[in-house]
C-alpha cells in the first residue's frame, strides 16, 4: 500500500472518494501505474504525476489535463487491451479506472513526451493561421493529391479497431412523468420532490455516482458533509418503484416532443469488454411528459499567453481532484480569477497542505466569504492584476503577472514573475445549456452571470440550478424543488412534503467580465493564447478571421474550427465569442451564439445501432416451405425482406447449368415454384368491383365468379407501379395478387383511396399474403401431377385457362388458379400456410415420375421473358405507362370512371411518338446474351456523348430456344420492328440486335391453353 502510494507522487495522504483499499494497476503509453477504485483515468494520471497527455492537433504542443469532466479537451485517449476492444478518443476525465485498463495518448511522434512534430509546429506554426490551407496547396494543380495525402496523415485522434466489436449494445424505450437530467443538488432535490409525490421519475447523471458538485465540495448540508445528504437522498430514491436512477448515463440528445436519448455505460466503464452475456452500453429512448434540466455549469478558463502548458487548469478542476480524488495536481499554485467562487480552489489547495503562491484577482476590491477565508489563511492576493503569460515547456514553471486597467483589457504596470507549477484560472461559469438548444431554442445572454441561459422553448422543459445561473448550492436546491413542484402541478399530481436542507451562509462578491487577458504585445505577436485547445484556435486566430471579413460567429467558427472538436467548444466557445465581439465592436449577444446540436458528448455507434445489426439488421421473411429450399441447397435472392429461392444447383452445377436444367424440365415436363411471397389481398364488399375498376387500368365490371384476370396498376401520373392477377371468388369477393415487393405499397394505395377519396364505397381490404402458401406447378405434365393429388376434375373442359376452382389437394382444401407466368399449362395451388409444407412435399412424392423440378426466381424470370411477360420493377422504372410497354390491351379507356392513371398517361409528354417503348431484342449472334442494363444506340460510331435510345431490361440465355432472349426499351421501338440497335459495352464490344416482338416462344399462346 504505502509503496503504491509513494509512487503516486501527487496523491494526498487522505481524503477523496476513492477506495484506498482497492488499488488498481493500469497501463498508460506502455508503462504501468497504480490508481484506486473510484479514480478516473485522469485523476489516476495526475496522481502519478503524468503531465503530458497529448499533443495538439496543429502545432503539436504538449498538453496536459485541464478539466475534470465532459469539458476536457486535451486528455483524449486510445483505450483497449485487445485489437477488437480498441476505443478511440476516450476522455480520460470521464473514464472510470479499472484493473488492467490500457490507455495511450493519441497524438505525438515518436511519443508525446519527445515529439518531433512539435518542432515542425514551432517552425511551421507561423505559416498556419486559420484557413491557411484555403490559401495554399493550389499550385501546381497536379500536386494537390500529394499535398492532401500529407494533410490526411495529420488527421484524426485515435484509431478505429481493425477487428469486429465483441460487445453487445442494447436499447430500451422508457416513459416517465419526469426526466431529470443531472443529479447534482438541483437534480436530486427535484427527484426527491417528484418521487415523494408518486411521479414516475428517471434521473440520469453522467458521473459514476450521483451528487454532482456536492461530491467535490467541502460544503455542509444540514450541518453534515454534503456527500452524506447525497447518500441519504439516493437511498430514499432507490426505495421508489417508479424511480429509475441512471448513473454513468449521459443524456445526449433532446429531440422534439420531449424525446431524449440517454447513453448508459453498463459495463464498459469498468471493463475492457463486457463479461459474457452482459450488455456493454444501453441506450435509453425516453419519452418524458416533463423534463427538468439540472445540467449544471462548466467553468471557463481564462485566455492568456501559453495557457496550454501542462499545469494550466480550470480552477474547479483543481478542487475536484483534491476533494473527490485525493490528488493535488502540483506543488505551487497560482490562481487567476475574475470571481469569488474560484477562490475555493486556492483554499482547497492550501488545506491540502500545498503552497498557494498567490491569488491573482482581476478585480480591484474583491470581498466575500471565500475571499475572507483566503485572507484568513494568509494567502497572498494580488488585486487588479492578471496572469498574462505562463512559462515553461513541458510543465508550467512560472507566470508573468501584470496590473490591469479597470476594463481588464490593458496592462498598466510592471510585470512580476513568479515561480509556480500550476496555474488555475476562472472566468466564471457557463451554464450547460446544450440540451435546451437541441430542439432549436436559442439561448439568451445574461449579463448578471456573464453566460447564456436557456431561451424560449416549445418543449415541456423546466430548468433548475446552475443552468439558470443559480450557482450557489442553496439556490440550486431550492430551484430543484420548485421546478419539480411546477412539473407536478403540470402533470396534475398532488404536491409532496418537502423540506430544503440547511446550507451554509456564503456571500459572493460581483464577478468581473473577463475572458481574454491582455499582453504587453498585441495579440498577433503575443505568445499563443489558446481559446480552443483541441483545435489549436488562438485569440490571434479569431482576430485574424474577423479582420479578413468573417464577421458572423458561424463564419468565425468555421474559419478557425473553434468548437469543432470532440469537446464541441464546452470550454472555449464563450471566450471565442467574447474575443470576436470585441474585435467587431459588438456585445456578445449581438455576435450571437453558436447552436449546440446533439450529442452532448460523443455516443458509441454500436449503442445507437443497438441490436439491429447483423442477423437482426432487417427481418428476413420466410415462406412456409423455406426449410425445404434450404435442405435442397437452394441459393437465395433478397426480394424486399423476403428470402426467395433463386435457383437449386445440383452437385457441381454452375448457375447457368442449373438454370438450363430447370428451364428445360419445366417446359418439357413440370416444374414448381414457391410463389408464396406474392402479395395477396382479400377484398370484400358490394363495391369491390367498382373499386377494382378504379385502381386497375382494365375493366372489371363483368368478370364472372370463378375467373381470374390480369391487371396493371398505375399512379395518377399514368406510370405503371404494380401488376398482378385478381380473381373473383364470389359476387362481392375478390382475391388480388401483387408483386412480392409491392404488396405493402398496394395495400396502402387501396386504403388511402378508400379512406380519403371514396369512403362511400362499401369495400374492405385485408392482407392475406402470409395466410396462403402458393405453389405453382407449370409445364405440360402439371395437370397429370395435379390429378394424382386431387379428385377434382381439372380437365381443360372443367377448368379452363384463367379459371380458379376450390378443391382438395393432398388432402388439404385448396384454391387452385389456372393462371400462368411461364406460358405453360400451369396451376397455382393455394393452401392455408400451416399446410403448405405438407402439400409441397406431397407434390414431390407424386412428382417423381414427372421429374418434378423445383425452380427459383431466376428460372421464373427466364421462362416469363421467353413469353415477353414483364416484371414490374425490372421492366418498369416508374417512368413508363402501359402503352410504352405495348400493353394497350390491358387499358380500357372506355370505362365510365376515369381510373387512376388515365389522365396522367394522356399528358403532352406521355403521348409523344418517340417515347421509349418496350420491345423484344434478338441478338445477331444467338449465342450472345445482351447484358442487362446495356444502353442501345442507333449509331455506334457517333461521338461521345452518344445519343442513347433505351436500355436492356431483361436478358437471358434460353435453353429452350437455344438462343438468347431479351427485352428492352427503344425510342419509338414499337414502330421499328426489324430494325437494328447497337449496344456498345464497356469492354469495347458492340452487340448488334434486331428489334422484334418480345414474345419469343409460342406467340399464339397455345401451350398455356391445353
Amino acid at each position, binding site marked *: 500500500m504505502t509503496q503504491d502510494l509513494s509512487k503516486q507522487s501527487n496523491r494526498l495522504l487522505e481524503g477523496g472518494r476513492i477506495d484506498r483499499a482497492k488499488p488498481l494497476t493500469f497501463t498508460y503509453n506502455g508503462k504501468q501505474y497504480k490508481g484506486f477504485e473510484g479514480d478516473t483515468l485522469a485523476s489516476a494520471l495526475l496522481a502519478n504525476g503524468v503531465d503530458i497527455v497529448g499533443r495538439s492537433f496543429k502545432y503539436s504542443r504538449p498538453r496536459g489535463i485541464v478539466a475534470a469532466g465532459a469539458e476536457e479537451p486535451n486528455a483524449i485517449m486510445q483505450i483497449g487491451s485487445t485489437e477488437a476492444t480498441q476505443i478511440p478518443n476516450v476522455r480520460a476525465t470521464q473514464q472510470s479506472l479499472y484493473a488492467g485498463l490500457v490507455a495511450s495518448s493519441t497524438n505525438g511522434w515518436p511519443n508525446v513526451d519527445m515529439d518531433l512534430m512539435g518542432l515542425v509546429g514551432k517552425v511551421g506554426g507561423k505559416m498556419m493561421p486559420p484557413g491557411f490551407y484555403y490559401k495554399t496547396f493550389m499550385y501546381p494543380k497536379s500536386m494537390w493529391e500529394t499535398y492532401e495525402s500529407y494533410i490526411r496523415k495529420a488527421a484524426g485522434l485515435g484509431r478505429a479497431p481493425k477487428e469486429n466489436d465483441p460487445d453487445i449494445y442494447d436499447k430500451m424505450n422508457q416513459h416517465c412523468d419526469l426526466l431529470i437530467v443531472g443529479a447534482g443538488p438541483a437534480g436530486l432535490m427535484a427527484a426527491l420532490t417528484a418521487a415523494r409525490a408518486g411521479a414516475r421519475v428517471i434521473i440520469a447523471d453522467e458521473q459514476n455516482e450521483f451528487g454532482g458538485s456536492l461530491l467535490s465540495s467541502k460544503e455542509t448540508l444540514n450541518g453534515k458533509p454534503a456527500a452524506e445528504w447525497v447518500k441519504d437522498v439516493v437511498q430514499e430514491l432507490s426505495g421508489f418503484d417508479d424511480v429509475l436512477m441512471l448513473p454513468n448515463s449521459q443524456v445526449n440528445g433532446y429531440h422534439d416532443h420531449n424525446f431524449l436519448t440517454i447513453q448508459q455505460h453498463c459495463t464498459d466503464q469498468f471493463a475492457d469488454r463486457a463479461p459474457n452475456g452482459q450488455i456493454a452500453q444501453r441506450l435509453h429512448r425516453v419519452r418524458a411528459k416533463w423534463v427538468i434540466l439540472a445540467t449544471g455549469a462548466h467553468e471557463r478558463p481564462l485566455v492568456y499567453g501559453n495557457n496550454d502548458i501542462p499545469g494550466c487548469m480550470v480552477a474547479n478542476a483543481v478542487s475536484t481532484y483534491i476533494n473527490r480524488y485525493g490528488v493535488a495536481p502540483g506543488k505551487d499554485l497560482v490562481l487567476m480569477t475574475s470571481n469569488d467562487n474560484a477562490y475555493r480552489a486556492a483554499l482547497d489547495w492550501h488545506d491540502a497542505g500545498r503552497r498557494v503562491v498567490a491569488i491573482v484577482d482581476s478585480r480591484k476590491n474583491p470581498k466575500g466569504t471565500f475571499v475572507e477565508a483566503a485572507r484568513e489563511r494568509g494567502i497572498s492576493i494580488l488585486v487588479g492584476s492578471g496572469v498574462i503569460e505562463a512559462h515553461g515547456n513541458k510543465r508550467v514553471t512560472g507566470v508573468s503577472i501584470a496590473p490591469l486597467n479597470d476594463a481588464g483589457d490593458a496592462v498598466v504596470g510592471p510585470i512580476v514573475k513568479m515561480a509556480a507549477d500550476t496555474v488555475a484560472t476562472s472566468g466564471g461559469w457557463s451554464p450547460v445549456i446544450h440540451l435546451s438548444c437541441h430542439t432549436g431554442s436559442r439561448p439568451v445572454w445574461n449579463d448578471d452571470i456573464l453566460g447564456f441561459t436557456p431561451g424560449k422553448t416549445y418543449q415541456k422543459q423546466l430548468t433548475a440550478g446552475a443552468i439558470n445561473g443559480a450557482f450557489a448550492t442553496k439556490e440550486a436546491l431550492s430551484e430543484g424543488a420548485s421546478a419539480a413542484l411546477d412539473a407536478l402541478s403540470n402533470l396534475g399530481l398532488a404536491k409532496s412534503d418537502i423540506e430544503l436542507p440547511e446550507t451554509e451562509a456564503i456571500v459572493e462578491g460581483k464577478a468581473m467580465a473577463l475572458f481574454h487577458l491582455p499582453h504587453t504585445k498585441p495579440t498577433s505577436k503575443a505568445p499563443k493564447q489558446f481559446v480552443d485547445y483541441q483545435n489549436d484556435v488562438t485569440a490571434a486566430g479569431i482576430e485574424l478571421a474577423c479582420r479578413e471579413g468573417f464577421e458572423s460567429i458561424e463564419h468565425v467558427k468555421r474559419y478557425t474550427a473553434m468548437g469543432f472538436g470532440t469537446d464541441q467548444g464546452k470550454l472555449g466557445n464563450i471566450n471565442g465569442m467574447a474575443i470576436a465581439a470585441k474585435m467587431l465592436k459588438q456585445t456578445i449577444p449581438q455576435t450571437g451564439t453558436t447552436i449546440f446540436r446533439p450529442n452532448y458528448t460523443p455516443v458509441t455507434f454500436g449503442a445507437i445501432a443497438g441490436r439491429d445489426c447483423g442477423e437482426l439488421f432487417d427481418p428476413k421473411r420466410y415462406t412456409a416451405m423455406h426449410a425445404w429450399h434450404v435442405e435442397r441447397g437452394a441459393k437465395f435472392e433478397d426480394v424486399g425482406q423476403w428470402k426467395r429461392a433463386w435457383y437449386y444447383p445440383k452437385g457441381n452445377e454452375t448457375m447457368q447449368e442449373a438454370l438450363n436444367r430447370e428451364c428445360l424440365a419445366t417446359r418439357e415436363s413440370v416444374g414448381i415454384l414457391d410463389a408464396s411471397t406474392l402479395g395477396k389481398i382479400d377484398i*370484400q364488399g358490394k363495391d369491390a368491383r367498382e373499386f377494382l375498376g378504379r385502381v386497375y387500368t382494365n375493366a372489371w365490371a363483368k368478370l364472372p365468379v370463378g375467373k381470374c384476370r390480369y391487371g396493371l396498376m398505375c399512379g395518377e401520373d399514368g406510370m405503371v407501379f404494380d401488376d398482378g392477377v385478381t380473381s373473383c371468388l364470389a359476387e362481392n369477393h375478390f382475391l388480388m395478387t401483387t408483386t412480392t415487393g409491392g404488396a405493402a405499397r398496394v395495400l396502402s394505395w387501396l386504403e388511402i383511396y378508400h379512406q380519403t377519396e371514396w369512403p362511400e364505397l362499401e369495400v374492405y381490404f385485408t392482407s392475406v399474403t402470409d395466410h396462403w402458401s402458393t405453389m405453382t406447378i407449370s409445364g405440360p405434365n402439371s395437370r397429370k401431377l395435379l390429378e394424382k393429388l386431387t379428385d377434382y376434375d381439372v380437365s381443360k373442359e372443367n377448368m379452363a385457362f384463367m379459371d380458379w376452382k376450390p378443391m382438395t389437394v393432398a388432402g388439404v382444401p385448396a384454391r387452385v388458379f389456372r393462371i400462368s407466368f411461364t406460358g405453360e399449362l400451369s396451376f397455382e395451388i393455394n393452401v392455408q400456410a400451416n399446410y403448405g409444407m405438407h402439400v409441397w412435399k406431397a407434390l414431390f412424392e407424386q412428382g417423381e415420375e414427372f421429374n418434378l423440378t423445383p425452380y427459383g426466381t431466376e428460372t421464373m424470370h427466364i421462362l416469363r421473358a421467353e413469353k415477353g411477360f414483364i416484371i414490374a420493377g425490372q421492366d418498369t422504372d416508374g417512368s413508363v405507362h402501359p402503352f410504352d410497354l405495348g400493353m394497350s390491351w390491358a387499358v380500357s379507356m372506355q370505362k365510365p370512371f376515369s381510373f387512376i392513371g388515365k389522365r396522367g398517361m394522356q399528358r403532352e409528354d406521355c403521348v409523344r411518338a418517340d417515347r421509349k417503348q418496350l420491345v423484344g431484342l434478338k441478338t445477331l449472334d444467338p449465342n450472345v446474351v445482351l447484358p442487362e442494363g446495356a444502353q442501345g444506340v442507333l449509331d455506334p460510331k457517333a461521338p461521345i456523348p452518344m445519343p442513347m435510345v433505351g436500355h436492356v431490361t431483361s436478358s437471358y440465355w434460353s435453353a429452350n430456344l437455344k438462343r438468347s432472349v431479351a427485352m428492352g426499351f427503344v425510342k419509338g421501338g414499337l414502330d421499328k420492328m426489324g430494325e437494328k440497335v447497337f449496344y456498345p459495352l464497356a469492354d469495347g464490344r458492340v452487340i448488334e440486335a434486331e428489334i422484334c416482338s418480345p414474345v419469343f416462344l409460342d406467340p399464339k399462346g397455345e401451350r398455356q391453353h391445353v
Partner: protein
Amino acid sequence: MSDVKVEAVELAPVDKLVTKQLPAAEIVGESPLHHADLISVAEHGPQEGGVHFHERKLMGLLTLRCLPSAEQQEVIKALLGVALPMQPLTSVTADDSPIGKVSVRWVSPDEWLIIVAGEQAFELETRFFEQLTGHYSLVNISGGTTIFDVSGRHVVDMLKKSTPVDLHGSEFPVGKVVSTVFAKSGAMICRVAEDQFELVVRRSFADYLWLWIQDASREYGLVVHH
C-alpha cells in the same frame, strides 16, 4: 389420394366465398416456428429465467371489418357469445361462447381480431356468413399468423427493448391491446395478466421475432415452454 373423400365445392352465386381450409385432423399443420423445434428447446433449454416464451400455435384467427350498426352488434354478440369491444384498445375474452373460448381484440374503429381454437375458424366464418347481414368482411388469417405468449418477471423489460409503447401498469392495464411496432416488424400486444402478454405476429416475420426475443431476453434468461 382417392381414399380421401372430398366434396368438390361448387360455386353458388353467393356474396362471399366461405370455404373450409383445414384438412382432416391426421394432417398436422406446421406453425411458423415449426423449424425452430421448440419442443427440444423446451426440454433441453434453461428451466429458469426472467422471460418465458411459448408459441400458441395453429389457433383460429379472423379479421372482422365492420362499422357495426346496433343490429349488427346484436347479431355479432350472439355469434361470439360476447359483445364486440367498442372502446379503443380494449379486448374481451369469453370462455363459454357457442364456439368455445373466444377472444376479441379491438384493432381499429372498424376492425377486430377474433381468436378461437383452430378448428373453430371455419365454423365461425360460416355462422357469420349465414347470420350477419349488411356490409362487413370476415377473413380467416389463421395460416398467416401465430401467437407468442410471453411472461415472467422481466417480460416488460424485454418488451421495452422491442416496442415504443408505454407498458407501465398505469398506462397499459390488463386487457389493453395495441397494434404497434415490434423491433423492425409489428405485433399486436395484449396484456393478459400482470406479467403476461400475448403477441400476435405475422407468419413470415415469426422467425425474425423469435431470434429477436431470444436476443433481447439473453440478459434475463429465457425459458421456452412447449
